[in-house]
């Protein structure tokens, strides 16, 4: 059986359950992010609004620039100030996605993107979303399935880990709830 497990990494990992959401905030749980600014904190929020990642010191990956780094690399801040995106380690990425299967399978055509929560091809409204796979030199503005981030193929194994850098910025005021992430892959 194939299973996806989503984890917000941090000092301790927080599993993102089926009814949980990833909350991008302004530094503390439920705090706002200024328009055109990027997240200063990331949390796991339960379906009843509780901070499930409280006490786990969850990682936050903050977009800084698309090409302002060394040789045109993107820049991000994951707790040590601004650095080139390709310096982030797997342990420092906010999101870990695990795909497991009872038999060893290879994974290809792996895509990750943000959408409005209803239609994969539709970008979330009034949100700038920047994502990257660990090791990438630049962020991808993966808004809608057609603009998806392509992840590296993963060789045959019963367990596959994918490490994602996540950052988002509201382009207008107001809570953004029509906003989801999706991962698609082919396994064989």
């Amino acid at each position: 059986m194939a299973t996806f497990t989503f984890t917000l990494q941090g000092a301790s990992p927080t599993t993102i359950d089926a009814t949980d959401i990833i909350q991008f905030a302004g530094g503390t749980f439920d705090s706002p992010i200024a328009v055109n600014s990027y997240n200063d904190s990331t949390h796991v929020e339960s379906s009843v609004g509780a901070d499930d990642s409280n006490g786990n010191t969850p990682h936050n990956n903050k977009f800084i620039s698309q090409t302002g780094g060394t040789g045109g690399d993107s820049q991000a801040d994951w707790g040590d100030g601004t650095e080139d995106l390709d310096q982030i380690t797997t342990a420092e990425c906010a999101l870990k996605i695990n795909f497991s299967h009872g038999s060893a399978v290879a994974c290809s055509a792996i895509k990750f993107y943000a959408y409005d929560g209803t239609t994969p091809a539709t970008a979330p409204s009034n949100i700038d979303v920047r994502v990257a796979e660990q090791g990438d030199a630049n962020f991808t503005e993966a808004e809608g399935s057609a603009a998806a981030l392509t992840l590296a193929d993963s060789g045959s194994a019963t367990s596959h880990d994918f490490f994602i850098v996540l950052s988002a910025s509201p382009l207008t005021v107001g809570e953004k709830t029509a906003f989801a992430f999706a991962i698609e892959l082919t396994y064989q």
Partner: protein
Amino acid sequence: MKAGKYTALEILKALNKATFKVATHAEMDEEGNETPVFADVKPEDVFGKYRVRIAGLRGIATPDHVINLQAGTEKVEVMVGTETYELTLEK
């Protein structure tokens, strides 16, 4: 080589083979029997010309095709043409 992300060419070179034996065509004798004719091809010259499969992944047609060998993987099966090789990863 340990688990991690590598290009297809890096993985082929990790096999420490100067060339790979691939069937380029077949010759037919008077009785209609076909015999494959092999050539030795350098790792960087197999892509896009001969079948390359790495760790169960098919359709590897470029040397810079990135492949993530997951942590815990001990052996990687590599197929070039009709020959299969095994790469043992370091722990």
